[in-house]
């Protein structure tokens, strides 16, 4: 089970108390009526779906109920940091996460019999 640090409760809580809420730092266009259909589709539907470091919104729905932002490594599933909603995109502290930590099927299960 993952432990997720809630920046409002100021402690690690079980993932069971949280919900994922999509990609973070997507700003709504200032004048949404003025943008083209392509720009709207880009804003509304298209997400980066990055492999590796990604910024997401999470909600501590069964705790304090607050939304917050998290930087997560989608390969190792590790939460690199969490911070309060409304703050600008934060730099992730240096971690050991790199290509070497990538777990592939071949690396972990490839010779399973």
């Amino acid at each position, binding site marked *: 089970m993952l432990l997720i640090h809630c920046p409002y409760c100021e*402690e690690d*809580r079980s993932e*069971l108390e949280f919900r994922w809420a999509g990609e973070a730092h997507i700003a709504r266009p200032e004048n949404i009526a003025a943008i083209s259909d392509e720009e709207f589709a880009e804003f509304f539907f298209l997400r980066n779906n990055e492999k590796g470091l990604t910024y997401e919104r999470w909600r501590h729905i*069964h*705790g304090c109920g*607050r939304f917050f932002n998290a930087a997560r490594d989608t390969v190792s599933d590790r939460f690199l940091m969490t911070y309060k909603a409304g703050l600008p995109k934060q730099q992730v502290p240096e971690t050991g996460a790199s290509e070497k930590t990538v777990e592939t099927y071949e690396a972990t299960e490839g010779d399973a019999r």
Partner: protein
Amino acid sequence: MVDSGADVATRSLPLSGVHGGSAAVRLEVAAPAGRISLRVRNEDVSALSAALGVDLPVKPKTSAFANGRTALWLGPDEWLVIDEGNSGLTTAAANSGALHSATDVSHRNTAILVEGPGAVATINVGCPQDLSLKAFPVGACTRTIFGKVEIVLLRTAEDAFRVEVWRSFSDYAFGLLSQGALDAGQ
């Protein structure tokens, strides 16, 4: 038409007549209480505290008790206030003169009191919280999850907890607590 009394609807409380527990844990249905779900901005917390007669805690996971009322911190601007006696909570909040939202949830919630040396083991059957006294001291409270339902958990003594649960989930919560109590009693 003569009123026989048989046609009059009688109000039955959630969890009325249920039994549970084991040698290690006593499960008891709490008496009806007044409750409000309170939302207040930072700057108005002191006004609401004065109006309610209990200091709204501003530190995460803490509660305060005064004048028969318990205020539980649920979020940065959200509290659950429980009054064991005659409520009057919404009126008291309204008299504060400060901007707030107070919703009466007295009948939405019911409470189960879990008490005994096996209380922690019983609740941990369905709750992922660390309930050691270091992480969850007496007076600590939080909204969390218990099996499939959301609860508000308050530690009232070293081996006693109050589990606040929505009334429609109370059968499920009591059933899981009963099973946990049996397991904790072994």
